């Protein structure tokens, strides 16, 4: 039937692909056919059946009835076939023979009526029927309508035929019905013409559509993006192969269940919202959600979708952005962790650009300066700086950019910052530059050092207090060191104490025992600093207490050892102690040394250095150590140097020790120096030697130099005193050597004999003897008040014949290096006899 062919696929063109459209069309056609068949054909069949039954009932069984029934049955069968054919093949033209057959049967039916009934009214009615049927040619549906009306009118006519009014009424009814039928027909006809045009059009474009469908199919199938059609009820309807590639499910799997089941739980609500929005006609751009893939992972899909609301369909394009998303997440994570690091860093971190504009300001910077991040970002960094930086910072930056000479970059510096509340505070600043294409950023790492500064100041103050106390202690310690050097005839002294720290573990002392005697003390506590310094004080006072003019140094040492042992061993300290008693008028030295090996005796005449060894162990090792005492004598010019091991242990930059040899050569090179000069030379040498090296140990030096000395006496010029006089001279001259003393005695015996025998003869008088012990020799001056003696009047004796006298002067001349006789000086007649010790 014509109504069945009404095409509807054009409505579907905007979505789906070719096969979709085709299916839709088929569905639509099927539905139309079925709808056409059911009411119309059933009604028709019923009417024809009633029509036939009516004939049979009214006209009695006979050949006519059978013929009518056959005709009606054939018409119905043919109609059914026509319908079936139509359903199998959508070509509308095939319906025409069917329709025509029905028409023919209807005409035959009417003619049969006329023959059989011979009834004018029947015939009139029949004509009307035929008239109605005439429309069939043009419009089948309206044929059925008119036929139905005719049939109904006919039934009514049959039932109430005998009333003439009814006949007229019936006639009007039939005419009206046919007239209405005609109007509807005309309207319908126009529609049909349009439908036909459309039908023809679609037929001509069918191939094109199919081609387009194929292209769409290819496009759909080859698309890398995920193309799909889904329905509002939440099911995919159609999926491009990309779905399987991305998610790993077969199309079947995906089509079976609501797509939202595969959406990540967190994205479900959003997805449903989107579906709702689509359903209400919105277009969705760039919606992202996650789908669970077959392997359990989630894929990020970016969707663009629109809905065809009328069809309840969603057309969507999905794009797998999982990789991009993951890298984005990684980036975000990194940025977050960077931010977290920045924000959790204790140091303030500020980034500025080359104009000084703050780009970044971390949390610590915020808490240091008291500004919130948003208060400073975009502002010039100088807002955080007090003068002079405030005004000069731009200059710093541009100077750097011009010269690229870093003043602070990579160096770090202590500067001052200003807080929001105006407080200026010290901060440690480290700046690094970040070179980006076309611009430079500067990163400042800032640490508030207010507390550190405070702590430093407190520490400095404490240090200062401690230093003051140490200085005080050092003053006390210095004050107990001898303030002045002892002055006794026959010796000159020099002494120096150079503590390695402020307090010394060395100490020295000079104790004047009597007018000719000095006790020299040098102690070295094995240790430095305060404990050693305290010990020096105690040792010093013990020694002072024990040293008396009649005490042997060894007794002093033994006593000091005994008294100090407890303290020393408790403090686990040792002391080396050198005690020496120097007798100025004789040059005699008695010493005892507790483990102190640092002492040298330099012999002037021999230019020889003799070590003065220790005579026992250091104090503090054994409680009852018994020391020994040793004696030596010093000639004028001899030098005794006593020192602490800070001298020999001084090191230079090459880690060499100063050692004893260097000291010896200094002494040997300084024979004519005074004690002070020698000491200065030693200290200077140590200083030069260990330049650049911190002094490790306390240094103490004592120099005792024996000076020329005079011994004089006056005795009566009598033979009874001769031996006494020459013995005294011998005794003093013995300092140089026994042979030397013998010869001096011999010469002086001649001189004194001469004075007694010749100058004074029998007269009373005295001889004044003055001996000068020089470093080079011995000088004897004799004065008498007797008769002058003409030494030139005594020529050398005649050595060829032995003489009983006259040898005296000759002996004196030969023995002594100088002989001088001055008669009648202010002090009397003066003999001077000089003998050089070196034999010169």
């Amino acid at each position, binding site marked *: 039937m014509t109504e069945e062919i009404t095409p509807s696929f054009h409505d579907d063109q905007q979505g789906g692909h070719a096969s979709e459209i085709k299916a839709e069309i088929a569905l639509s056609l099927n539905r139309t056919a079925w709808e056409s068949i059911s009411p119309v054909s059933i009604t028709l069949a019923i009417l024809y059946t009633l029509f036939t039954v009516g004939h049979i009932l009214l006209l009695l069984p006979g050949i006519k009835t059978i013929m009518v029934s056959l005709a009606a049955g054939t018409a119905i069968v043919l109609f059914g076939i026509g319908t079936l054919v139509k359903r199998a093949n959508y070509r509308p033209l095939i319906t025409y023979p069917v329709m025509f057959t029905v028409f023919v049967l209807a005409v035959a039916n009417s003619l049969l009526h006329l023959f059989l009934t011979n009834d004018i009214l029947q015939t009139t009615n029949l004509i009307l029927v035929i008239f109605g049927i005439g429309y069939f040619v043009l419009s089948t549906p309206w044929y059925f309508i008119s036929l139905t009306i005719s049939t109904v009118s006919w039934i009514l006519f049959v039932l109430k035929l005998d009333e003439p009014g009814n006949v007229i009424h019936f006639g009007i009814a039939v005419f009206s019905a046919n007239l209405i039928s005609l109007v509807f027909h005309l309207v319908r006809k126009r529609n049909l013409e349009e439908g036909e045009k459309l039908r023809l059009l679609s037929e001509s474009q069918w191939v094109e559509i199919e081609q387009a469908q194929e292209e769409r199919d290819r496009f759909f199938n080859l698309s890398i993006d995920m193309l799909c059609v889904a329905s509002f009820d939440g099911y995919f309807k159609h999926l491009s192969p990309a779905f399987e590639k991305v998610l790993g499910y077969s199309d079947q799997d995906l089509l079976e269940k609501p797509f939202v089941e595969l959406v990540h739980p967190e994205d479900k609500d959003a997805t449903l919202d989107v579906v709702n929005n689509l359903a209400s006609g919105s277009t969705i751009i760039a919606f992202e959600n996650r789908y669970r893939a077959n392997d359990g992972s989630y894929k990020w899909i970016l969707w663009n979708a629109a809905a065809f609301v009328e069809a309840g369909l969603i057309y969507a394009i999905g794009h797998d952005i999982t990789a991009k998303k993951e890298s984005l997440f990684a980036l975000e994570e990194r940025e977050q962790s960077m931010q977290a690091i920045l924000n959790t860093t204790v140091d303030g971190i500020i980034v500025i650009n080359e104009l000084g504009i703050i780009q970044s300001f971390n949390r610590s910077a915020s808490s240091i300066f008291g500004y919130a991040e948003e208060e400073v970002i975009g502002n010039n960094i100088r807002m955080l700086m007090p003068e002079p930086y405030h005004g000069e910072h731009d200059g710093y930056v541009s100077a750097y950019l011009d010269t690229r000479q870093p003043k602070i970059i990579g160096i770090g510096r202590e500067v001052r910052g200003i807080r929001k509340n105006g407080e200026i505070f010290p901060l440690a600043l480290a700046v690094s530059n970040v070179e980006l294409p076309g611009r430079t950023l500067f990163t400042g790492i800032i640490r508030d050092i207010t507390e550190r500064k405070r702590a430093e100041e407190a520490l400095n103050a404490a240090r200062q207090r401690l230093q003051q106390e140490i200085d005080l202690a050092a003053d006390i310690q210095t004050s107990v060191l001898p303030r002045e050097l002892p002055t006794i005839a026959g010796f000159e002294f020099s002494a120096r104490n150079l503590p390695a720290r402020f307090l010394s573990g060395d100490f020295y002392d000079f104790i004047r025992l009597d007018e000719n005697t000095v006790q020299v003390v040098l102690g070295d506590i094995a240790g430095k600093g305060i404990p050693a310094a305290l010990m020096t004080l105690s040792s010093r006072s013990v020694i002072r207490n024990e040293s008396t003019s009649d005490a042997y140094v060894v007794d002093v040492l033994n006593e000091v050892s005994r008294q100090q042992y407890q303290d020393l061993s408790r403090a686990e300290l040792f002391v080396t102690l050198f005690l020496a008693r120097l007798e100025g008028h004789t040059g005699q030295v008695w010493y005892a040394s507790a483990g102190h090996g640092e002492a040298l005796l330099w012999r002037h005449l021999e230019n020889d250095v003799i070590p003065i060894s220790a005579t026992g162990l250091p104090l503090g090792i054994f409680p009852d150590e018994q020391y020994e005492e040793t004696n030596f004598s010093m000639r004028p010019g001899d030098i005794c140097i006593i020192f602490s091991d800070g001298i020999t242990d001084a090191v230079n930059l090459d880690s060499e020790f100063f050692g004893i040899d260097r000291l010896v050569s200094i002494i040997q090179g300084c024979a004519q120096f005074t004690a002070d000069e020698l000491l200065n030379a030693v200290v200077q040498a140590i200083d030069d030697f260990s330049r650049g090296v911190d002094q490790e140990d306390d240094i103490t030096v004592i120099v005792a130099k024996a000076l020329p000395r005079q011994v004089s006496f006056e005795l009566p010029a009598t*033979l009874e005193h*001769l*031996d006494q006089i020459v013995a005294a001279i011998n005794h003093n001259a013995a300092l140089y050597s026994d*042979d030397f003393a*013998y010869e001096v*005695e*011999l010469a002086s*015996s*001649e001189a004194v*004999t001469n004075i*007694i*025998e010749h100058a004074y003869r029998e007269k009373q008088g005295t001889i004044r003897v003055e001996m000068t012990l020089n470093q080079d020799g011995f000088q004897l001056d004799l004065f008498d008040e007797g008769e002058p003696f003409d030494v030139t009047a005594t020529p050398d*004796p005649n*050595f*060829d*014949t*032995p*003489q*009983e*006298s*006259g*040898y*005296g002067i*000759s*002996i004196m001349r*030969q*023995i002594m290096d100088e002989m001088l006789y001055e008669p009648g000086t202010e002090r009397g007649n003066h003999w001077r006899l000089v003998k050089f010790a070196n034999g010169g």
Partner: protein
Amino acid sequence: MDLTIIETKPIDGVAVLIVAGRLNVISAGELKDKLKALVADGVYQIVLELAGVTFIDSSGLSAIVLGLKSTRVHEGALKLVGLRPTTKKVFELTRLDRVFEFYENTDEAIGSF
């Protein structure tokens, strides 16, 4: 008192004087006296044993020279034994070492006569 002189009995006409101590102006007279006495007694051969002399000056020397001269007058001799180096030196200084005979020991000196 500083000088000790021990005189031994002459053996074969040789007298030996053992001298010890300081021989100077104080003690020289004593030695001179001894020597004079020996010569006076006819002893012209004298040995002076000087090992004990610790000191001698020109006065001591003169006593010994006197003894030498006295004996030489009588064709005798005075010989010296056991001088300390310091004593010998005094003889050398006065060139008297050229006129005296020195011996290491007394027997040798005695035997030389």
